[in-house]
């Protein structure tokens, strides 16, 4: 909890510093929103040609889109800054985070916080709200609980993927491309029904990089649909456990990476 206080102060400082470059801030916010809307436009244009995608209607895919987009946006806002570890390692400034009595990951993500990324949350949040209204969801107390748990878990899973892929920088220094393939690529993959993909890809998204848990399994249960790969409907409730496992794995990988840190230059 005390760490949270430090985080708040560091983030506040970053926002105040960025505020001195207001024009840049608003331009970026605008471009972020435009990029997010483009993703949506792609889905919309697909549905202008077909009625359903792998048996999923437009409203159902919108639910997937929202369930994937909101956690992705939240992870992007709060933890994706870990990507900058690569830049800091190269410049030798990562050392400074290690000299502070707060966790380096918290310090790094707070110091590199970018409020302008909030645009990445707003747009899918709007889509999610619309989808929740129009999609054929069997509403119950369980559905509401599943929705909330899924959003939190999804954020943790995306965040973990970010931390793990960014940790590669400690061995290779250059890692942003790999990280982006999993994070941005993963976000795109989770926005569609995984029935669209080949079986190996479905298995990859379920078991290796557990992104199917972020949106697909919970959405399928909320909509009363069959799960893929012969999995039971209740697999949706595995999501929070997958999230906890992801966080623990990410923590271990990050700790290993920091111990491996070689600190360039003098």
């Amino acid at each position, binding site marked *: 909890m005390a760490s949270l*206080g430090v985080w708040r*102060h*560091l983030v506040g*400082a970053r926002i*105040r510093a960025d505020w001195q470059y207001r024009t840049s801030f608003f331009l970026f916010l605008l471009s972020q929103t435009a990029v997010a809307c483009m993703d949506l436009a792609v889905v919309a244009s697909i549905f202008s040609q077909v009625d359903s995608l792998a048996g999923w209607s437009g409203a159902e895919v919108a639910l997937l889109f929202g369930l994937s987009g909101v956690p992705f946006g939240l992870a992007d806002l709060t933890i994706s800054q870990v990507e900058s570890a690569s830049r800091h390692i190269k410049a030798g400034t990562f050392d400074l985070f*290690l000299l502070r*009595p*707060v*966790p380096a990951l918290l310090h790094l993500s707070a110091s590199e916080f970018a409020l302008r990324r909030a645009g990445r949350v707003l747009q899918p949040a709007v889509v999610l709200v619309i989808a929740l209204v129009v999609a054929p969801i069997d509403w119950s107390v369980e559905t509401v609980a599943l929705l909330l748990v899924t959003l939190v878990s999804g954020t943790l899973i995306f965040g973990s993927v970010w931390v793990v892929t960014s940790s590669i920088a400690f061995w290779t220094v250059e890692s942003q491309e790999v990280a982006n393939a999993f994070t941005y690529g993963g976000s795109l993959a989770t926005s569609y029904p995984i029935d669209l993909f080949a079986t190996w890809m479905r298995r990859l998204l379920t078991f290796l990089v557990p992104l199917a848990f972020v949106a697909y399994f919970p959405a399928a249960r909320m909509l009363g649909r069959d799960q893929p790969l012969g999995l039971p409907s209740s697999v949706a409730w595995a999501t929070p456990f997958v999230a906890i496992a992801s966080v623990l794995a990410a923590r271990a990988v990050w700790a290993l990476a920091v111990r491996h*840190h070689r600190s360039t230059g003098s």
Partner: protein
Amino acid sequence: MADEPIIDVAGLAKTFSVLRKAGRVRRRREDVVAVAGIDLQIERGAMVGYIGPNGAGKSTTIKMLTGILVPSSGRVRVDGLEPSRDRAELAKRIGVVFGQRSQLWWDLPLRDSFDLLRHVYRVPAARHAANLARYAEGLDLGPLLDVPVRQLSLGQRMRGELTAALLHDPPILLLDEPTIGLDVVSKEAVREFLVGLNEEQGTTVLLTTHDLTDVERLCERLLIIDHGTLIEDSTVAGITARYGTERTLVVDLAEPGPPLQVNGARVTRVEGPRQWLRFRRDDVSAAELLTRVTAQVDVRDLSVEEPDIETIVRAIYAR
């Protein structure tokens, strides 16, 4: 506890494994030894200079002392802690200044950086205010507190960095090139401040530097590292006595003449009526040499130059 060395290092080594080009595509894994077994004890309250050529292992040692780097082998204790394991706890007890890397928030006023550090280090507000007042006065920062860091000169920023490193009252201060790039006045201000800090608060200071004036002005003890090994560890005076055996007698003659021929000394430079005679203190005393010179020519003025630490260190590296 008080008698135990605050920095205690035994057999400390760090080896990096790097990929070297071997042929067009192939890379060969190669071990590079940065630090090759260092033994070192530093007492509480000491001010120690740590010098060596570039790539000798200075920074690698400092980074292992702070826990940034995990040693390949050997034992490190800093204020009773093992740096790589207790890094966060140790961070509260050390202050670090890297001359080339700022730990201040570039776009914010100096005061904001200090305030953030107060939260990061959990310094009680009253103590923070007292420390800030003291350092702002000692380093003459008062008028700069509300200036964004990016607008400060290098010398002003360095004074800010020192304050930032000290606000949490660390008993140990590690300085990596604290005077690099500073003008003479700023350098002197930083040195005076460090001497005062050490005297008043007993802060243990370990500094790496290329500027040997820093060492002469600040340190009693000098460590010299080369190729990852400590090649010297003694007092500055001891090193001067051991290696600085060559002194120079500078004489101003009544009128210009050819280089003097004197027993026990050789002329190294002539500039008009002024001549430089180098001699070894073991061979002849300055007084005796002067007698020999005045037996030959009239001397108007004279001075004796002791070897400076810079010359000595260059001689040690060259061995």
